[in-house]
């Protein structure tokens, strides 16, 4: 079980509150976690990564265990604490005004 914390706008879109808990088949990576998230909440497709290229949107970042994972490869394993459900993966909107 993977814990994911979405930013407020995406929680509103997905109609969830608090953390989201999802099951991921195989190794927990950015790609497998996002695949599982988008499968359960199709409205999130295109909000964190591009529909076609699958590249992370420029103003979206991924943090966990006090580390910035935004620039890790999509298939790199997530930290063990995230894979074990001890720590959440944080999806964060870039700190820019508006």
């Amino acid at each position, binding site marked *: 079980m993977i814990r994911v914390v979405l930013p407020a706008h995406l929680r509103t879109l997905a109609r969830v509150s608090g953390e989201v808990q999802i099951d991921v088949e195989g190794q927990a990576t950015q790609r497998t976690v996002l695949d599982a998230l988008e499968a359960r909440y199709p409205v999130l497709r*295109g909000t964190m990564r591009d529909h076609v290229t699958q590249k992370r949107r420029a103003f979206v970042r991924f943090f966990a265990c006090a580390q910035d994972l935004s620039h890790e490869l999509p298939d790199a394993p997530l930290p063990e604490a995230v894979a074990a459900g001890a720590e959440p993966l944080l999806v964060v909107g870039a700190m820019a005004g508006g």
Partner: protein
Amino acid sequence: MSGVRVLVGTRKGAFVLTADGKRERWDVAGPHFAGWEIYHLKASPADPNRIFASQSSGWFGQQIQRSNDGGKTWEPVGNAFAYDGVPGTHQWYDGTPHPWEFARVWHLEPSLTDPDTVYAGVEDAALFRTTDGGQTWHELSGLRGHGSGPRWQPGAGGMCLHTILLDPSNAERIFIAISAAGAFRTDDGGKTWHPINRGLKSEQLPDPTAEVGHCVHRIAMHPSRPGVLFMQKHWDVMRSDDAGESWREVSGNLPTDFGFPIDVHAHEPDTIYVVPIKSDSEHFPLDGKLRVYRSRKGGNEWEALTKGLPQSNCYVNVLRDAMAVDSLDACGVYFGTTGGQVYASADAGDSWAPIVRDLPSVLSVEVQTLP
């Protein structure tokens, strides 16, 4: 009793304003999609309770929302806008090639007859269509691929396809406009397109009378006379009497012919409205006086409409999609400002009053006349 529903898109959400046919007392609902940019909302003429909204964010991209109950509740529909084939390049601001990249949907134009069919004008400029109520979107790539695409360039707001006019007398004919490429027309339902910019003159181009490259801000038509088009260009107010084949300037006695919106009276095809703006670098009314100008002769002769509008220290802008008319008698005219006011006139522009004064910056205004 008849009434009106005004759909307002703003930088931070959507608002739905409703009134009865007197248009004196207004109910304001919203914000819907709070915190998101709502570039445009528009209802289906074939099913007036079905409304589509373009919801976007620099962080989280594009969503399309659909309501089937007149804007009370909404559901997200498809948000994948993939260009057909290899996107290619257009010109960047400095004239160098720049790859086509989807940014957002600027304008949604529901079919006149089918509530499941909607056209979407997007940035970077392209035209998409859904025929399943918004679940899937497909590019009408004959427009972007007709040959002049590499010469298109962005205006200050981005390279956007912002105007879509459906000809009510000919289902195969569609007019669109792009900043800064110009106006285009299809006569075969969107398969093939050609530029319709003869007569336009833009000093910002190496060849001021080039076939494409013009910063057309808005086109309007009266549904009873779809061969007559009115255009607010970057500078110049223009008119065509031959479905865009040729244009002539009708700026006449306007104090400045820069501006964004242009619209046509619901019952008088030669009565048109513009909001003159000082210049391309000073996007506010001349002399701090917010004035709508009306021509009852299809251009050239204009009168200032000022009653109820601020006539000092007003420095707002009125964007291209932020003016609309209802079809009551007398015709109602509406516009929204970047200062968050939505003004309404229930007497064809003779007098104005704000419906709301303090919304986020207004991006678009549409009006439905309800039975």
